[in-house]
Structure formats: structure tokens, C-alpha cells
């Protein structure tokens, strides 16, 4: 009896000392509920970030759910302080693998991203986030607030100071509002021009100089191009007159943004999404000698000639 008790007591004492050491080690770990432990584990198990790849010296990447830009063909990447999803806000049906055409500028001296931001549908604004020092510092410029659900978006600069933004939104069936904003201070502030008052869906638009700009309308089954022109930086808009030869009626239907060519302006009019004339890719080239008010037919061009 005596030996049994003393033996048991010693064993218990040793057992408790080991238990204390074991308990101390266990207890030093943070306590977390099981579901949170699993969540943490899942986060750790997430695949490692994919390496980013650049095709051009100045390029962007949308991989790993983050917009990054590079100025050295992918050797180093700079994150852009804009959530990826915001860049695709509004009417967008793509796969978010590439940025929306014309919604960004990526040059050595200016990087800019145009997007719609806001928590609720009613409380959205149009923002341009830009950097003039290759991503070292960023500014947010509010272009319009509030602005309903955005569809068409385009930003471009003609020089360091002058730039334009064209956006459209609030689409119902085949009607929407479209607005033009101009900056004369390199993007810090934006001022809306007078409205063209056209409610057809906008197809394209742009300025060729600080006063002369165009808006092209009609994207769904257009029958003829509808081009509006301003020659006073958006104070007034008038419909341009395009003389389409009879044989091209209902063939060349959507006007692109005119470009300057020698001492006149040139305009390409394409066949729209349903065009099938000579395979559908051929465009009509038109020339204007009065700064965009009237346009005369020049020639047919194949896609390669226009690029």
C-alpha cells in the first residue's frame, strides 16, 4: 500500500509537470475559432501570385486582380491605386482581361484611367486617376458627380494641357445621355461643354484641336452616319453634312472620329456590326475642307490602309 501510494504520487507529479510544460507550449499559440482557422488556412493555401507579363515597354497588367503598370517591359511593376472592378463599372460585358478601349492613357509622360466610382447606383461619379511621374504620385480628378450608370467612355489628350473626356450613360433601350468634358490644365479640373442634345447611342467622338470636336452617333442597326461637330470647344454643336454617294447608302453607316490630314480633315465611315460589303471591313474615306461641317466622298479603303 505504502509503495503503491508513493509510486502513484510520484507518477502523478511527473505527469503534471509534463502536462504543465505541454500546456504552456499549446497556450502560447493564438486562440481562434475553427472557422477562422480554416479561413486563414484557405488564404495561405491560395495560389501564389502569377508572374506579370508585359508585351510593350509601357504596358499594363490586370492579373492577380490588380491593375499594375510597367515602364520597363515588365522588369518592375507599379500598382495603380484603383480597384480593378471599378475600371469595369457600368455597362460592360467583357471578361475583365483587358482594359476598356479608350478608357485609359498609357504614355511615358501621362498615365490615366477613367472609371465610374460610387457605392450605390444613384451616387456614382466619373473619376480620372492619373499620374504624371510614371506612377510615383497619383491624383484623382472628379469629372462628373453624380453620373448615372456609365456605358461609353473615352479619354484623350492632345497636348500636355488640353484633353477631353466623352462619356455616356443612363441608357434605356436605344436612348442615352452623352456628355463631353474638357480640361485646359492637364486634367486637374474638367468642365462640361454644352450638350449636343442627341439621345441616340454614341459610337465615337474626339477632338482634333482645342476647338474642333466631333460626336458620332448610332450603334444599333444604323442606316446612315450621324456626326455632330463643334468649332467653338463645345459651346455649340451642329450636325455635319456627309455626302454619301448613292451606291454606298446604308453601307457606310458609322462615322469614326475624324483626323487631321495635311490641310484638311479625313473621316472614315465603317459598315457597322452588320456590314457585309466586300467582307464588311472596307471603309469609306471622306474629306472635309471646312473643318468638319461638310464631307465629301474620297475613296474606299481596306482596313490595312486605315491603320
Amino acid at each position: 500500500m505504502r509503495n503503491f501510494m508513493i509510486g502513484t504520487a510520484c507518477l502523478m507529479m511527473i505527469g503534471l509537470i509534463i502536462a504543465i510544460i505541454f500546456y504552456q507550449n499549446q497556450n502560447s499559440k493564438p486562440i481562434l475559432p475553427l472557422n477562422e482557422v480554416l479561413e486563414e488556412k484557405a488564404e495561405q493555401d491560395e495560389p501564389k501570385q502569377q508572374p506579370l507579363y508585359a508585351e510593350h515597354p509601357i504596358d499594363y497588367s490586370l492579373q492577380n486582380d490588380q491593375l499594375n503598370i510597367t515602364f520597363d517591359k515588365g522588369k518592375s511593376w507599379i500598382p495603380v491605386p484603383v480597384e480593378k472592378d471599378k475600371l469595369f463599372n457600368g455597362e460592360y460585358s467583357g471578361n475583365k482581361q483587358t482594359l476598356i478601349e479608350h478608357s485609359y492613357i498609357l504614355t511615358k509622360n501621362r498615365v490615366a484611367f477613367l472609371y465610374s466610382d460610387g457605392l450605390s447606383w444613384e451616387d456614382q461619379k466619373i473619376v480620372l486617376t492619373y499620374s504624371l511621374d510614371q506612377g510615383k504620385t497619383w491624383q484623382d480628378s472628379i469629372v462628373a458627380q453624380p453620373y448615372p450608370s456609365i456605358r461609353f467612355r473615352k479619354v484623350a489628350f492632345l497636348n500636355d494641357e488640353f484633353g477631353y473626356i466623352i462619356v455616356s450613360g443612363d441608357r434605356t433601350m436605344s436612348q442615352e445621355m452623352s456628355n463631353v468634358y474638357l480640361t485646359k490644365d492637364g486634367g486637374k479640373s474638367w468642365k462640361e461643354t454644352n450638350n449636343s442634345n442627341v439621345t441616340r447611342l454614341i459610337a465615337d467622338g474626339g477632338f482634333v484641336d482645342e476647338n474642333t470636336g466631333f460626336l458620332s452617333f448610332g450603334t444599333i442597326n444604323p442606316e446612315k452616319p450621324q456626326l455632330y461637330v463643334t468649332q467653338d470647344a463645345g459651346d455649340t454643336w451642329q450636325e455635319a453634312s456627309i455626302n454619301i454617294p448613292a451606291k454606298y447608302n446604308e453601307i457606310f453607316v458609322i462615322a469614326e472620329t475624324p483626323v487631321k490630314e495635311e490641310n484638311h480633315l479625313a473621316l472614315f465611315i465603317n459598315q457597322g456590326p452588320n456590314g457585309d460589303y466586300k467582307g464588311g471591313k472596307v471603309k469609306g474615306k471622306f474629306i472635309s475642307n471646312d473643318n468638319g461641317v461638310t464631307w465629301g466622298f474620297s475613296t474606299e479603303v481596306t482596313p490595312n490602309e486605315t491603320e
Partner: protein
Amino acid sequence: MKQNKNTLKKIGGMLLFLFAIGFFILQIGYLFLHTTYQVEYTDDRLFYIINIFIMICLAAAILLLISITKKWKVIGGSIIILFIIVNVVLLFINNHQIKNIVRISPDFKHVLALKENTKTGKTVYYRTYYYILARPKESFPYKTTGEFKVKWLAKDIAAVTYKAADNTIHQYIGTYGDRGGGGSYYYVGPSLYGRWEGKDVEVISNQEGITVVHNGKYEEFDWDHIVQFGTLAVVLTKNNQAAWAITLNENFEVDSNSSVPPSGSISLYEATMAKNKPITLQYVH
């Protein structure tokens, strides 16, 4: 007479020895559960207290059952005292690192258990089993500063009001019961639809949210700012802080038919670190 005394000593000694073995088995079993099933003592300090208890029982049992020389009494006694001191020190060190908050419900049926990691400010709410065992259930969403005010608003509802590291006030409601028969989950907000009145206070719950009228001051909370706990309470939040907790009292009955007016009362409890009492409200219409 002497024989009787000896028998009593023997029985007492054997009982203490069995106690020691029993608690020793509990302690080892606990360590097994702790590592395998994430089970912890409701209060971490219990581990050390049980250790000390085992040692005292063991020492007393030996003294009662067997005769040992004075020399061994001194050696054995010293070891036991040292063991107890080590456990007391570890108990304080451990409680400094992980602060235990344990409150038993007024009817002694439930235990509210919280553990705060004082270093990280992370506080975890525990579900308890058989009073002394617990498993972590949920972390508090904000870093805590160690100030907790616990109040049992009903036998099965404990409100924890605490300060976050950024000095904002929050509430966590531990719930241990049900007012709907326990058969199904239900939303507390819709079961409160209507107007409720109490002393100097009114609560109106409708489609838009819940309005609290307190001393003539209106406070509106839309449903996005109302957080439900269990099936017994909601916390109304404003500016990222808790403002009020509304709990269903024990006489409240949840009826799945929304056209039937609610029966029973509810409690309104302000989120403040100062001492305060819940206000009971009755259904008006």
C-alpha cells in the same frame, strides 16, 4: 475510539486519493481534448487551480494513510509548495497574456466565456459545455482594449459592451436560448414590427428600419445598420459604433404568422460603458 478515528482517517485519506486520481485523469483527458478537438477550459486559470487541487489532495491523502519520517515530510512538503508556487505564478502570467472573462447566468444554466489576447487585442467568444469546457465560436470584429461590461439582460442573453482600440463602443450579445420553440431560425427585426413603449422611450420597427425615441430624441437605424445575434437580439449601430441593443424577453413569443401581433415584451439596452439598466418595452400597436 482510537479505532474509529483510524477508520475515519483511512476513509478520508482514500477519498482524497481518489479525488486526486480523478482530477488527474480529468487533466490528462483535457489535454487530449485540447489538442484534438480545440476544447479549452472555460477559464484558462482552471488548469492551474486543478493542478494545485490535485497536489493538495495527494499530500493530504499520503499524510492520512501512511506514516513517513520527518525528513521525507520536509522534502515532500517543499516539493509540493514549490509546485503550488509555480502554478500560481503561471496562472498570473497566463491570465496577463490571455484575459479570461467568465460570467454565470442568473439561473446558473449558462456561462458566458470570453478570452482576450491582450497582446493582439483579439477577443474570442466561447461556447461552453458542462460549465468548465468551452470551444471558440467567434472573434470580436474589433480590437479590444480590455474593458468589458457584461450584463445578463435575460436568463439566456448576455450583453457585452466593450471599447475598441480606437475608443469606439461596441456590443456583442451572447445568446443561449430561443423564443420560437427552437425549431427554426428566424429574423429578430421582422418579429419586432410595430410600436413599442417603455418608460420615456419608444421603439418603432417598420420596413425602413428601427427608430428609437429616447427622451424626445429620434434615432433612426436602417436595416443595413442592424446586426442580429443568435435569434434573441439585435444591435443598432451608428457611425460604426453600437448605439442600442434590443433583446426579446423571456415572455416574448415568435409567431411565424406576421399578421398576429407579437406578445410579450422586449428590452432596450444602451451601449455605454457607464452603469445602466435595460428598459422594458411593451407592444402598443
